[in-house]
C-alpha cells in the first residue's frame, strides 16, 4: 500500500463509519445516553443504581407515579399509570386499585391484579435482596380481588401510603410465579425482561450497551423517540467526550470543569436542575473500636459544634464547585417537599472553636500547631471514599481548615467496598458520607433515626441517637395531614442541625448536557428519564443518521 493510499484510507474512515447527518427518512429519533455505570440490575424489585432505575422505569410502569410537584404526601400529587383509578377504604388502611384495561405486557398478555401480588412477593423475598423491601414495610399485604382489581392493605395510616404503593411495580406473574425463591437474579427473565412500560428491551451487552425500542401499541400511547440506547464508558472523561463528539446525546451529571468546556460544542444544550444528593461529614457518636462505648471526643456536643464552626463551607464549596452547589442546610435537599430554607446553620467562626477547645483542656500545641491535652494530640481519622473525587477533594480542604483550628485530620481513603465495610462497622471518627434522597422523607428513619425503634437506624453510620428527632419523624410520617407532616419533619431537621450530628457540607446543582436537536419537556430533577417518552426531534434542527426510522424491531 502506498503512502498516499494509506493516507486516503485514514481520511476516508471517518466518512465511511462515523455519525453523519440524516440521509434516509426521519423517524422519531434515537436518544443515546452516555453513562459510566452499567444499569444492571434493572428489574424494579432489585435495581440499585440510578442508571438501573432509569432502565427499569422505561421498561416497567408502576400502579401510580408521583407527579411533577413531587409531593409524596396524601394522594393529590400522584398520577395514574397501570392503575386507572383507586379508592380508599373508610378506615384508610386499604386502597383498591382498578387496573387500566388496555394495559398489556410486552408479550401481549394483559396486566392483572395477580401481577401486583407478584411484584410485592419479589420485593419481600430476602434472597432477591430488594432495596425496596425497607421502603414498603408499612404494606401488610396485597390481595387480588379480581383480574382487574388489586387491594393493598397497610399496617397503619401514614402520610406516604400511596407513595409506598407506587414503589410496588406489578411484575408478570405468568412468567415469574414458577421461579424458585431467590431465583430472580439468575433467571432468563432478568436478562430478557418482559415489561409494561413505554419501551421494550431490544438488545443488551452487559457493561457495553443497552438498547430499548418504543412500544408501538402502549396503553398510554406510542412514546416519542424510536429508540433509547445506553452507551457505557467506565471512564467518565470518555463518556463525556462522546457527547462532545455527537456519538451520544445525553450526559446526566457534568463535572464543573466540563460545564465550562461545553461552550465549545454548539450542539450541546446545558440543563441545570435541582439535585437530590447531599454530602456531609458525619461524626461518630460511638468509639471506633467499641461501638458500645461513647466516642471519647465526639460524644461531646461542644466539640462537634466547635468543629462545625471551624469550617468555612462557603469557601469550600466555591473551591470545589464554583457556583454549582448549595451549602447543605440539613439532611435534606432543596428540591424536597419538606425542605426548610429558613434553618440557620451553625455559622463559620474563627474564634469560637478556639475558645471551646481551650475550655475543654486542649491548650497545648505541637510544633505543627496541633492541640494537645495531657500530651495527646487532637487527632481524628476521616473515612473517605476514593471513588468520589469531590469527597476526596473536600476532605483535603476540611483537613486544612481544621488544621488551622489545631485539629489533626488523618484522611483514610478507601475503595468503595472497603469504605462501605469500615463505614458500616463504625470504624472511623468522621466519615465523608453522602445520600441520594427521594421525594419521600421516610429515608430519615434509616439514615439518621436511632436503632431504638425497630427497623430504624440501619444506615445511621455515626449512630446519632435523638429520641426527639425520632418522635418528630415518626409523628410526621404518621399524620394524614400533609401540612402537619411537613411541620413535624421540619422540626426534626431543626433538632438534628442543632445537635450538630454532622457538618452539612453541600448539595450539588447538577447540570446535564443534551443534544440540541431534541425539544425537551420540563426536566424532572428526581428522574429526568420519566419525560423521555415525550422528547421530540426539533424540525428546525438537522437530524443525525441514527434518527432514521429503524428498519428492524
Amino acid at each position, binding site marked *: 500500500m502506498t503512502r498516499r493510499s494509506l493516507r486516503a484510507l*485514514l*481520511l476516508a*474512515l*471517518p466518512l*465511511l*463509519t*462515523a*455519525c453523519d447527518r440524516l440521509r434516509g427518512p426521519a423517524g422519531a429519533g*434515537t436518544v*443515546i445516553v452516555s453513562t459510566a455505570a*452499567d444499569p*444492571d440490575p434493572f428489574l424494579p424489585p432489585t435495581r*440499585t*443504581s440510578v442508571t438501573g432505575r432509569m432502565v427499569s422505569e422505561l421498561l416497567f410502569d408502576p400502579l401510580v407515579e408521583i407527579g411533577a410537584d413531587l409531593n409524596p404526601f396524601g394522594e393529590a400529587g400522584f398520577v395514574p399509570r397501570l392503575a386507572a383509578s383507586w379508592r380508599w377504604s373508610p378506615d384508610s388502611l386499604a386502597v383498591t386499585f382498578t387496573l387500566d384495561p388496555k394495559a398489556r405486557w410486552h408479550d401481549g398478555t394483559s396486566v392483572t391484579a395477580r401481577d401486583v401480588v407478584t411484584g410485592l412477593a419479589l420485593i419481600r423475598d*430476602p*434472597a432477591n*435482596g430488594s*432495596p425496596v423491601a*425497607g*421502603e414498603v414495610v408499612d404494606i401488610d399485604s396485597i390481595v387480588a380481588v379480581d383480574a382487574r382489581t388489586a387491594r393493598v392493605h397497610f399496617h397503619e395510616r401514614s402520610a406516604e401510603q400511596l407513595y409506598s404503593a407506587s414503589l410496588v411495580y406489578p411484575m408478570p406473574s405468568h412468567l415469574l410465579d414458577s421461579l424458585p425463591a*431467590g431465583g430472580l*437474579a*439468575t433467571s432468563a427473565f*432478568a*436478562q430478557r425482561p418482559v415489561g409494561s412500560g413505554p419501551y421494550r428491551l431490544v438488545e443488551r*451487552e*452487559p*457493561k*457495553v*450497551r443497552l438498547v430499548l425500542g418504543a412500544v408501538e401499541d402502549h396503553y398510554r400511547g406510542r412514546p416519542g423517540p424510536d429508540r433509547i*440506547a445506553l*452507551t*457505557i*464508558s*467506565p*471512564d467518565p*472523561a*470518555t*463518556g463525556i*467526550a*462522546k457527547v*462532545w*463528539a455527537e*456519538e451520544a446525546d445525553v450526559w446526566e451529571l457534568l463535572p464543573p470543569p466540563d460545564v465550562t468546556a461545553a461552550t465549545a460544542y454548539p450542539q450541546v444544550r446545558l440543563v441545570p436542575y435541582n439535585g437530590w*444528593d447531599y454530602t456531609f461529614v458525619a461524626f461518630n457518636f460511638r468509639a471506633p473500636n467499641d461501638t458500645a462505648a461513647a466516642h471519647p471526643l465526639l460524644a461531646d456536643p461542644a466539640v462537634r459544634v466547635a468543629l462545625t464552626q471551624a469550617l468555612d463551607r462557603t469557601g469550600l464549596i466555591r473551591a470545589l464547585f464554583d457556583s454549582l452547589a448549595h451549602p447543605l442546610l440539613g439532611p435534606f435537599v432543596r428540591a424536597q417537599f419538606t425542605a426548610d430554607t429558613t434553618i440557620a446553620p451553625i455559622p463559620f467562626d474563627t474564634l469560637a472553636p478556639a475558645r471551646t477547645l481551650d475550655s475543654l483542656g486542649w491548650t497545648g500545641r505541637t510544633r505543627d500547631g496541633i492541640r494537645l491535652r495531657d500530651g495527646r494530640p487532637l487527632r481524628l481519622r476521616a473515612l473517605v*471514599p476514593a*471513588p468520589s473525587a469531590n469527597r476526596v477533594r473536600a476532605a483535603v480542604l476540611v483537613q486544612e481548615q481544621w488544621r488551622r483550628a489545631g485539629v489533626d485530620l488523618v484522611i483514610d481513603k478507601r475503595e*468503595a*467496598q472497603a469504605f*462501605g*465495610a469500615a463505614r*458500616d462497622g463504625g470504624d472511623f471518627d468522621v466519615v465523608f458520607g*453522602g445520600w*441520594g434522597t427521594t421525594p419521600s422523607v421516610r429515608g430519615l428513619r*434509616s439514615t439518621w433515626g436511632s436503632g431504638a425503634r425497630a427497623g430504624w437506624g*440501619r*444506615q445511621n453510620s455515626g449512630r446519632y441517637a435523638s429520641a426527639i428527632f425520632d418522635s418528630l419523624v415518626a409523628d410526621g410520617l404518621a399524620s394524614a395531614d400533609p401540612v402537619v407532616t411537613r411541620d413535624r419533619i421540619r422540626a426534626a431537621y431543626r433538632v438534628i442541625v442543632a445537635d450538630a450530628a454532622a457538618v452539612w457540607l453541600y448539595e450539588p446543582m447538577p447540570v446535564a448536557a443534551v443534544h440540541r436537536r431534541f425539544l425537551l419537556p420540563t426536566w424532572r430533577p428526581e428522574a429526568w428519564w420519566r419525560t423521555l417518552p415525550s422528547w421530540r426531534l426539533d424540525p428546525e434542527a438537522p437530524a443525525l*443518521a*441514527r434518527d432514521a426510522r*429503524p428498519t428492524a424491531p
Partner: protein
Amino acid sequence: MRRALLARLGHGAIVIALVVSACFTLIRLAPGDPFFRDLDAARLTTAQREAQRAAFGYDRPIPEQFVRYVGQVASGELGWSHSRSQPVADALAATLPATLLLITVATLLAFGIGVPLGAWMGWHAEHPLARAVDRVAVIVLAVPDYLLALLAVMGPALAWGLFPIGGMRTEFGPRGLGGLLDVVHHLALPALALALPVAATAARLQCAAMRATRDHAFVRTARAKGGDDRLARRHALRAALVPVLSFAGVHLAVAVSGVVVIERIFAWPGMGRLLFEGVLARDYPLVAGGVLVASIGTVLGTLLADLALRWADPRQQALR
C-alpha cells in the same frame, strides 16, 4: 523435545493452579462481597445479605467453597457473574475475542514497528536519525500508559475528529463491510496506545542487541565471504532477536495488565475491563474465571515465545 514440552506444560498447569487459588482466596478475604450496592445506595438488611450469601454458598468456609469451585470447573461450569447477571462463561466468551483482537493487533504493530526500527537503529548507530528515534522512544516510555491513552482520546479523536471516542463500533452504525471498517476504525487508537510503549521498548532492545551483534565474528565472516551488506545484516538480525523474543514472552503477561487501562479509557469491551470491574464488584466467580483464562493465555504465550527463542538461537537445544 516432546518431554521438555510436556514438562513445561506441567509447570504451566501448576502456575495456573497457584494463581487461581491465590486469587480465589484473596478476593474473599478483601472487605465487601458481591452484594455491595452503590456507594450511597440503601444497604441490604442483615437477613437479605445472609439469604443472598447462602443462596450462592458464600456463607461456607473458603476451603469448602474452593473444593466446590474446582468440582464446578472440572465439569465445565464457571459459575454466575453477579455484576453482569449472566453466566461467567458467557461473559468471558463475549469479551475474550475483543481482547484477543486488541492484543494481537497491538503486538503485531509493536513488534512490526519496533523490531525493524531497532535493527536499523542498531546497524546505523551513528546516524543522527537513529539517535533522534532513540530519544523519541525514551519519551514514549516515560509517558504513563493512561496519559498516552487520554491524549489519544482528546487529540486525534475529539479535537481532530479522525477517530471515534471509544467503544468497538458506532451505535446504530453500518453493517457488513462498513461494519468491519467501523471496527478497524475503533480499534486503531487503542491498539496504537497499547502498542507504542511496547514498540519503543522492542526498538531499544533490538537496537542494543544489533549493535552488540554487528561486530561479532560470524557477521564479519559473512561479510568476508563476499556477501552483500544485506546478508550480513540478516545473519546479525537473527542472533540479535534473542533478547526481543525473551521480551515478547514477558510482554504477553504485561499486556494482560496493560490492556486493563486501555480498555477502560477507550471503553473497549474486553476482558481486561471485565476483570477490573469484577474485582471492584467482588464478583468472585467472574474474577476466578477471568484469572483462569488469563493465566492459561499467559502460560501458552510464554511457551510460544520460548519456542520462537529456540528457533532464533540454535545454541538453545533444549527448552529451559
